[in-house]
């Protein structure tokens, strides 16, 4: 019943931070775990962090290019996880798992779908973050190195739609 909480001051989560969160989601090591399995688990987690850091950099480049060329219209792009980045990430993580001592643990389709769901969740979170900073705050860039976007238009319908969708319906019922 617990939410995970990810916090970054003065800007966006870095690709590194998102990668760590994604890897922790996939390789869940008990806080009190010790011994060889815990060491091997950390190594696998580190490998997934390396893979996902590159993927989040790719995602940032895709989002920034989309914003640069299409401006606010980019906000209407699908919010499904970018399919090419998703597929390559799942494939590379699969390879890393096969090469790890945990290969036999990760053989069922259920595990594969779990990895895919986790990567998709974090890619979508990253995508949402880039677009939200652009749509609502008119900022682009990575991590805390943000700059004002030249082509941001707060009056654009796509920007207004984006903000309305995030807020959902307001309630105002007196108690």
């Amino acid at each position, binding site marked *: 019943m*617990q939410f995970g909480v990810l916090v970054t001051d003065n*800007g*966006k989560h870095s690709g590194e931070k998102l990668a760590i969160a994604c890897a922790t989601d996939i390789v869940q090591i008990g806080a009190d775990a010790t011994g060889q399995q815990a060491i091997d688990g950390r190594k696998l987690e580190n490998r997934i962090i390396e893979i996902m850091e590159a993927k989040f950099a790719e995602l940032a480049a895709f989002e920034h290019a989309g914003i640069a060329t299409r401006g606010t219209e980019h906000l209407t792009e699908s919010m499904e996880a970018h399919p090419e980045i998703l597929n390559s990430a799942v494939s590379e993580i699969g390879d890393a798992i096969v090469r790890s001592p945990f290969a036999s643990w990760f053989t069922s389709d259920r595990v594969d779908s779990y990895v895919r769901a986790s990567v998709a969740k974090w890619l*979508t979170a990253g995508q949402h*973050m880039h677009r939200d900073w652009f749509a609502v705050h008119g900022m682009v860039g990575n991590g805390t190195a943000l700059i004002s976007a030249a082509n941001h238009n707060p009056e654009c319908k796509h920007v207004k739609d984006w903000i309305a969708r*995030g807020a959902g319906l307001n309630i105002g019922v007196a108690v």
Partner: protein
Amino acid sequence: MATTAICTTLKSEILQAGHNFSTTVVITATSGNATFTLTALASTAGIAVGMAVTGTNITAGSVVASVDSATQVTLSKASGAAPGANSTTFTADAFKIALVKSAPTRTFDGTQTNIGTPGSGAPTATNLGTDEVAASGTYASGGSALTNVGPVSTNPTTSAAVSFSGTIQWTGATLSVTAAIIYNNSTRIGAAAVPLNGRTVSVHDFGGTQSVTAGTLTLTVPTQDGTTGLIRIT
């Protein structure tokens, strides 16, 4: 302060069909008449009585009155005409998530029954009130909309879990928060002394104060299963 818990009232309200966590169903009804029925649906899977219905020629405020067969539903309001080849959308209840400020005056837990008027009034079991964190960045009073995933029977197979998709995230925000409250923003069942909507579902403690300055706060939803799922019946 807060204690992670499913709200006690949720349990009885579930037994009264007071919450529908189903995912949105978008489907084409190729025909229908200008009265109450939608016919020739490709499927009625996932459609439940009470779901809101929107689409071409569907009268505003329509809900599903009955599921008549695998291909037909009856609506609560007469349609202007058949929907033709257009998609019709069936939507379950709208859930939202609001944030509790650090050092709140009330201890939020499973006794919470309603979100009340976030940001206004004394915090009580029926009102988050002034214990809601102040709006900042993309966090607005009342919190953010959630996207239903739909309940599943899950691991272990004797369990059921509810989850939400999409990204629960606030940007450009300066917040200091200690918990979140999920609530149902749809009016599905009547109530006496509390708002008809805003019935609380669950309280989620963050294990301490979480602060962000002009930055990004992301909540990640755990795996939808019987041991870690956000809201589960085991």
